[in-house]
């Protein structure tokens, strides 16, 4: 088991290094650097002045040297300064991640139980009317990306045209305090797109378990259907969705970026767009590291969790 962890961990570190190197080289392309030089000094610099400035700042050294230097600084906690916010990157990222963490927490609280419920209800009687309608609902939610459902919900629940105005169409106040009024729409928008996929995986896994021999045995013994589902099927059916839920995090990241911009909630996703839009190299690098780390760590947890939850999979050590 330990060998498995170490090998997975090694691959993860290698992947992280490759990915950060790719990001590093992409944000440090020559046109980006020239743009940076002009932004930092004045827009009407001659090409010669740009070259001199880049030389003075050390941007003309080989890419790998600069990457090593950046990585060294990063590991020791020096993330550089943001040119957009004129503050150390570490301060900004922490603050924004906290806000996104709150959003993610509520999304998970809403999304996971409802997705599992839909999946289990659909999968326990495969092919029934209940199954068909819930499955179609799940398909419909996967066909509704955040920028579609967000727009539709805003029109329905907060525009003057429809007149309901139940919820606020902007979540900027939610950064100070979350209320039902200002946080429902962003959470709902994100939860809906993500839940369809989890529900479908749960349904597939549930439907498979329901055909297993031990379920038939339980049924022949005369156990009630309710008790079969709750006591026998559910535990085994929930192993597969666990992996899916963990692997859903990278997808949520895209959702976070869309939803935060749509509802003007200034979290990590908003920061990423600001950094990319303003050519803020140090900030974009740190955001990328966070994003990549989230993806890799959730992958690792999903692998380990799967092995841990499912004793039938024995790891060769």
């Amino acid at each position, binding site marked *: 088991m330990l060998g498995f962890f170490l090998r997975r961990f090694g691959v993860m570190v290698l992947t992280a290094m490759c990915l950060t190197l790719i990001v590093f080289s992409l944000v440090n392309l020559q046109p980006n650097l020239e743009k940076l030089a002009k932004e930092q000094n004045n827009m009407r610099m001659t090409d010669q002045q740009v070259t001199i400035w880049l030389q003075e700042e050390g941007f003309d050294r080989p890419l790998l040297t600069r990457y090593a230097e950046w990585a060294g600084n990063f590991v020791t906690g020096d993330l550089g300064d943001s040119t957009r916010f004129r503050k150390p990157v570490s301060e900004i990222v922490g603050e924004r991640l906290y806000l996104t963490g709150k959003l993610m927490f509520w999304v998970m609280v809403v999304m996971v139980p409802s997705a599992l419920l839909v999946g289990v209800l659909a999968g326990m009687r495969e092919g029934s009317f209940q199954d068909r309608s819930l499955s179609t609902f799940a398909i419909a939610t996967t*066909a509704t990306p955040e*920028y579609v459902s967000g727009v539709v919900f805003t029109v329905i629940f907060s525009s003057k045209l429809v007149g309901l105005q139940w919820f606020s169409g902007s979540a900027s106040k939610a950064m100070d305090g979350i209320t039902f009024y200002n946080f429902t729409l962003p959470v709902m928008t994100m939860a809906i797109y993500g839940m369809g996929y989890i529900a479908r995986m749960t349904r597939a896994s549930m439907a498979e378990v329901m055909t297993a021999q031990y379920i038939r045995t339980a049924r022949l013994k005369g156990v009630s259907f309710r008790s079969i589902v709750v006591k026998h099927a559910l535990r085994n059916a929930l192993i597969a969705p666990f992996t899916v839920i963990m692997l859903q995090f990278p997808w949520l990241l895209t959702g976070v970026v869309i939803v935060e911009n749509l509802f003007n909630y200034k979290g990590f996703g908003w920061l990423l767009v600001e950094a990319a839009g303003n050519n803020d190299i140090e900030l974009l690098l740190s955001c990328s590291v966070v994003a990549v780390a989230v993806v890799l760590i959730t992958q690792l947890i999903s692998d380990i969790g799967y092995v841990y939850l499912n004793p039938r999979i024995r790891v060769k050590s």
Partner: protein
Amino acid sequence: MEPLGSFQILTTAVGHFLPVWIGLVLIMGASALFKRNLSLYGRLFDSPVGMIGLALVLFWVLTAIFADMVAPFDPLEQYRALKNKPPGMFETETGQAFLFGGDNLGRDVFSRMVHGSQTVMAIAPVATLFAFMVGITLGLPAGYYGGIFDTGLSFLANLVLAFPVILLFYLLVTPEIRSTAIPTTMAAVLFLIPIIFFIVFIYCRFSTRPDLMWKLLTPVILIGGFCYLHLINAWNPAGVWMDGNTLNIFVSVVFVNSPTVFRIVRGLTMDIKTRDYVAAAQTRGEGPWYIMMWEILPNARGPLIVDACLRIGYTTILLGTLGFFGLGVSPESSDWGMTINEGRKLLRLFPWAALPPALAIMTLVLGLNLLADGLREQSLKD
């Protein structure tokens, strides 16, 4: 003139789609009539879900084809008087109504929605097809041979998959990157693979019959080569076919999708290569590429077709996301994602500008997903 009421708007809109309805009825009718001779596609008509999906997809395909006949206005023409006006107002000069209202520049929302389908239909299916060719060409040998080749490619695929999609797009689809050689180089590599795919596909089967092989290979090389030179903008006699930004988006979408296809194909190959007919072909002394292309690939087609439907839908969502962040095809175009992005700024005052393209994306993707579901259900009945 009096503005139209909501019922009249609906009937007029349905009327505008007349060529689409005719096409839809003809295609669906003909397919339903001959469904016994159409194998998997025909059996789709036995499943209501699949039929609804097919109808939705066909609706948008036909809308893209007949866009000029369906749309009453030019999607870029601005009518000052109808700026941000609610649905149903008449344009005085032409006597036509702005069915779904006017946007913030006084353009007809309905016509823009109709024309927006062309952008999606031009990019999403082709990009998915390219991603599949790349994924298949690399996934087959990876699954068949295994070993270091497989480990290396799988590592690369996982590398791309570990990239958050949105970050990758923010890094790849920028104006700065277009002034470097990266998009063209990526295009040159990625687009070469489909041609290699077809050449190998034909060569490994017909190499024993050279005259037939050359008959098949010559058009592939000529047409493929022509398209290839066009795509990478190396040779452009007929003017620019694809501008820099579209090429960049196209390449990025192919690049994002192909690792997933690679993983699916690899998995399927590893499963299928243990079957008896593969062993039979090996005993017959067939070459490895013949076995991969003509024994394994045809038997993996079911899951691949289903995945292709889902993937076109996913690509549509991706293109919308790009448009939403202002990274889309071109700033003036009627691309759905970009229209949503423009419309959302005034969403609470004038919601009609963003709603039609949003619902358009939703129905198209829903159609593709339902179609995939119907196909899966029918192919499992084998």
